[in-house]
């Protein structure tokens, strides 16, 4: 489970402090498919970065499976990311000097996992790029690059996948393909997926939705973690249907954005 407690982020712009995320607390249950939506500059990517431990909050704490990652040093945090979090970026961020296969293999090599070759090839097959294993990123199309990035995110079979506008840099066909892959991953592996997007159509495919504006969550369709039982998760997974939005306009009781800010 992902839990954010009173998390905020303030940066210095010029000499002035600028709050890009006002204090908020949310819980994302295991196996959830959540879409964070909102206009540009609303704090979506910042929130995702804080969940991934890519960035440190100015206040509050972020818990991944009860571990407060804000208290971890850089190296422990890196290890935790390697084990528990897969990240997909809008701009792919593949390492240009490595082939598609090598980009996928790197997280496994870092984690010291055995049988890297078979697993990397399996992932390439899963994203439909078997024949492109030895191509460099510059030799792949945008859609293919994003599929490699997705395979890399799944390399260590993480329980959480965070995707920051994964279709934002792709045409609609490729965008749909990536979304299908994400849905499959979520349904087949039971992976928690947190997706940042400003595309309402894509957001509609998620189980729940967080709507953000000016650094605040203004709408949260997430149910309280305890409200969803393990059985329900298992049934949903079995059904292969993650798309059961809880209804627009529903304001969740766990929405605890500080009204003072």
């Amino acid at each position, binding site marked *: 489970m992902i839990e954010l407690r009173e998390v905020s982020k303030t*940066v210095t712009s010029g000499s002035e402090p600028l709050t890009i995320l006002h204090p908020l607390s949310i819980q994302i249950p295991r196996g959830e498919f959540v879409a964070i939506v909102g206009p540009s500059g609303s704090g979506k*990517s*910042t929130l*995702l*970065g804080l969940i*991934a431990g*890519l*960035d440190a909050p100015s206040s509050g704490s972020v818990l991944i499976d009860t571990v407060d990652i804000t208290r971890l040093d*850089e*190296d422990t945090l*890196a*290890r935790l*990311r*390697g*084990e528990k979090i897969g*990240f997909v*970026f809008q*701009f792919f*961020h*593949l*390492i*240009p*000097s*490595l082939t598609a296969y*090598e980009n996928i293999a*790197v*997280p496994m*090599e*870092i*984690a*010291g996992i055995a049988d890297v070759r078979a697993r990397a090839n399996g992932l390439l097959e899963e994203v439909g790029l078997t024949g492109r294993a030895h191509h460099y990123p510059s030799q792949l199309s945008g859609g293919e690059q994003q599929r490699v990035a997705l395979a*890399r995110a799944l*390399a*260590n079979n993480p329980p959480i996948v965070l995707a*920051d506008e994964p279709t934002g840099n792709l045409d609609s066909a490729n965008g749909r393909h990536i979304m299908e892959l994400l849905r499959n991953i979520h349904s087949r592996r039971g992976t928690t997926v947190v997706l940042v997007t400003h595309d309402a159509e894509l957001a509609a495919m998620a189980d729940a939705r967080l709507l953000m504006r000016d650094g605040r969550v203004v709408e949260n369709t997430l149910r309280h973690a305890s409200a969803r039982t393990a059985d329900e998760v298992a049934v949903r997974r079995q059904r292969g249907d993650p798309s059961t939005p809880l209804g627009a306009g529903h304001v969740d009781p766990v929405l605890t954005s500080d009204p003072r800010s």
Partner: protein
Amino acid sequence: MKFVLSMAARETRSSWRRLLFFFICIAVGVAAIVTLRSVIQNVRDVLGGEARSLIAADVLVSTNREWPDAVRATIDRAVAAAGATAQTETLETPTMVRPVDEKKPVAKMVELRALQPNFPLYGTVTMTDGTPYSHAMLQNHGAIVRPELLTALGVKVGDQISIGQAPFTIRGTLKNEPGRRIGGFSLGPRVLIDYADLPSTGLLGFGSRADRRLHIRAPEDRLDTLVLSLRHDLRDEFLNIRSYRSTEDQIGRDFERAENYLSLVGLIIVILGGIAVSSVTRVFILQKMRSIAVLKCVGARSRQIIAVYILQVLSLGLAGSLLGTAIARGVIAAIPYFLSTSTSPSVLAEAHYGVTSSAAAQGIGIGVLVSLLFSIVPLLDVRFIKPSLLLRDENTRRRRDWLGYLVLVTVSAALVGLTAWQASSLKIGLVVCAGFTGLAFVLMLAGRLLVQVVAPLANSRSFPLRHAVLHLSRPGNQTRVILLAVGLGAFFIVGVRSLQASLLGEFSIQTAADSPDMFLLDIQRGQADGMRAFLSDPAHYAADAQLIPVLRARVVGVAGQETNLEGADAVRRSGMAIGREFTLTYRDHIEANERVIDGVFWKGPSPEPEVSVERQIAERARIHVGDTIRFDILGRIVSPRVTSIRDVEWRESRNGGFVFVFRPGALDQAPQTFVAPIKGPAGLDERARFQHDLVEKFPNVSVIDFREILETLRDVMSKVTLAITVVGGLVLFSGALILIGAVAMTKFQRVYEAAVFKTLGANTRTIARMLLFEYGVLGSLAGLIGSLGAVVLTWGVSRYALEIPWRVFVGEHVGGVVLTAALVAIIGVFSSLDVLRNKPLATLRAE
């Protein structure tokens, strides 16, 4: 670990082109170290580990006078007391030889060496054709000669040559013999004859310049006692007594010093390469920031990523070092071909050249170490790269980096250690590092100052010039590094070339129409009239000749206002530069190159002895007008009063420059010989014929041909100059590499800027001019810094090391600035061709 290894291999595979400069910089420096060390070790090997063969004895006693009976008796007693098992005598003298065949009208000065049957006591005489040497080859007027004499005289083995008054048959050609002088200036090729045949040559007349040596073999445990007792008993005699041990120590020290100093030069080139490595690594990490952030994002820890790049640096350093060793091998293999063009035989020509394993090991070790030391500090920046960089660009504020400071201090200490190791002295290591830091600091300050000086050009009306100047102070520019590296290279080259011009100017002997170009030595008193007649004979092409009387003497005491020395030993120990033997003359006039600066120069002869002293010696020995100097002139003591001090312009002393000139009268009847500076015939054939005729009539007279000497000198100078220029060239080459590296590394920034400029309407020509101006200004500044530094260097070296007048060679300095500017501009523009070629849209999209 698997991740580190495979990642390092992948990174090297993909970025080797970008890091090509990295290992070329290291390769150049390592090549310099390996070459210089190997050559010195090769030359040292020629001399052999067997120091006894260097002096061909355990103990060597030498003198340039005839052995006085008393001295020989003392030596014989000491030698017998020490239980010496063998001794042999040799004699060396420069003399003229000519073919007996009258059809060959040539003569050549040689270094004659007469040997007794049991020579050598140690080592072997080797012949060029490999036949074993035996003294029988020399007996009954046989001679063994160096091959170059055969060529010079147009003779072959079996032919006869005249040495002095006697004919000798050439029985073989000499390759090497023990006990010759090393590194001394050679007057001519070596000729070996039998000691027993010496008298027949008539060369040992009065005043002849012969070096007599007594080689002694004695038991090892008695050597020190023998040397000490000889030195004690013969302390007032003009003798040189040494054992093979002191020779070994001296030669060992000389070579070690030479090797260490040359290695330091190599190390400086490697350190320049290191500066390039540091700069390349810094920019490389900047370019790799996103990839590093990705690695951190997928779980890699900073230390794992640093390990990847360190492994990469080490492998590149090793590859560069191996390449450097291969280059050194090529350069060393070329040395024999280069030396084969030399006219003068030398110890250099006899060495077997090859890369020595110790030099290669040191070179590779240093290459890898310098790669590591210079890249570790920029690599530490990996720690500050945050994975959040992938979400948004931001400047993370650095906290105080104690680890960084610690590493910096460790690296500095390691560099001092490395330099100290190469120089074999902690003091030199510290001095060189401090000097390098100081020089770098001065160059940096000068660079900053000069950038400020050209800053007003940023308001120029010319668009390319304006932007070129602005680029010099842009953030992340390489101005300081380029100024430092190229400035240092220019400094070395211009400095060395100026010094070379200065030295050649000092040595050059003007062969103006009327100035003498030959020097006749050892004209006996009885030959003086005959010589005058010979020289004035129009058939011999010689103009009027002046015969100058010369006597050899030494100072054995000074009674003066400041200096008081009693006895030869006191003079020798005073360290006042008057302990050596002097050649003096007497005359009643001062020469054109002399000027009396104190006292009065005499007029006419006087039976009372008077002497005029040269200024520099007078100053060093603190001798003044009115003092009395005691001279030992072949056993006779003469005590003249100093009546004048003369300033002598030595460069102009073609009629012989003398430290001590006596008033005529007192020495007229003393044993003396004559020398004659003359203007020889112009043509080569006529000069050869003249020398031949002269030697035929006066066999004991030696002819020094200034033209030949000048040629030899030029040959030596050109080799020294070439060697220094090669080293300077390597430094400049390193500078150029740093420049290319810097340009290539900042290219990504330029490509983007050029794309923006192109979008805004600038054409390729404008951008090319902008680059040309930028690098032209940078090159001019680097050249100016180097040139100004070279002025200071030549002043210091001329004034304090070489003690020659300081002159500024404007051509060298201006040429240095212009060439450096042109070089930097050309390299800069050519390395940026991509910037000019790239289409703007593709570049802007990529951003």
